[in-house]
């Protein structure tokens, strides 16, 4: 089942990237996708874990839009720090509680923290992330807690 899924994904990727739809080119695409799947199968790299996207179909895109807004704000703040004559840096390494239940949710939260400039996930531990902030204010932890709450809300467990 996973083999067929991987094959279909590879063929679709070929069709999207090549853009030439003559029988020979498409045939070559199908052949190379088949070869790749065969090699992966021989290497025994296809695990039997089910692919679970435990995300809310509507909640997650909404979260992404909210995240884009946060990225814009954070970028502006860091740009002002970089271009300021006296760079107002207040570095701090602190811990943030993690409430996501799935691995995917935690990955999304950690990547979201890193994606907003100004905060970077430095270390992941079971219950908490260590986060480094370049311009630390007392409100920074509050913002990250808000992000944590939103990621947990977009999770469908």
């Amino acid at each position: 089942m996973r083999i067929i899924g991987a094959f279909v994904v590879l063929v679709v990727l070929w069709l999207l990237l090549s853009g030439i739809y003559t029988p020979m080119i498409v045939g070559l695409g199908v052949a190379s996708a088949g070869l790749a799947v065969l090699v992966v199968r021989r290497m025994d790299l296809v695990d039997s874990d089910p692919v679970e996207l435990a995300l809310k179909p509507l909640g997650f895109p909404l979260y992404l839009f909210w995240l884009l807004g946060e990225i814009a704000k954070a970028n502006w703040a860091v740009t002002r720090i970089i271009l300021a004559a006296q760079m107002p840096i207040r570095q701090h390494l602190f811990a943030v509680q993690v409430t996501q239940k799935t691995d995917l949710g935690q990955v999304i939260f950690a990547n979201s923290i890193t994606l907003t400039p100004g905060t970077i996930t430095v270390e992941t531990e079971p219950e908490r992330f260590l986060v480094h902030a370049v311009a630390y204010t007392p409100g920074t932890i509050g913002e990250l807690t808000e992000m944590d709450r939103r990621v947990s809300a977009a999770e469908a467990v």
Partner: protein
Amino acid sequence: MSTAALIQEVLSWVLVVSGAFFALVGAFGTWRLPDFWSRLHAASVTDSAGMILLIAGMCLQSGLTLVTVKLIVIGIFLFITGPTATHAVANAALVSGLRPREAEGLIAAEPEPLTVAGGAEGDAEGTRKETAGAA
């Protein structure tokens, strides 16, 4: 040129130039900021704002073609791998013993129970899994 085409042209102009501006600011920051930990954040500016704005501007420029699909594939890939690579660099620096200089008035960094000889390996395992899952 119709009004819609004009708006599209102007909008993509603004997006591409502002994206290039943010990419330049990020590179400037890595050159200017005083130490490694703050430079991480400057690189993050190029990875997020510069990349997103440039890709969006080029998408508008090319309209609804296969080129847009390729741009979106590149965009999604960079959107996921950019922060993962930054996290990997930061994590490697932390494990190797590099510590940020805390600002005055702030309590020193949180203790690191996992960086001792025995724990470092299990922790590295988790990082690698996360990387594989994100990619």
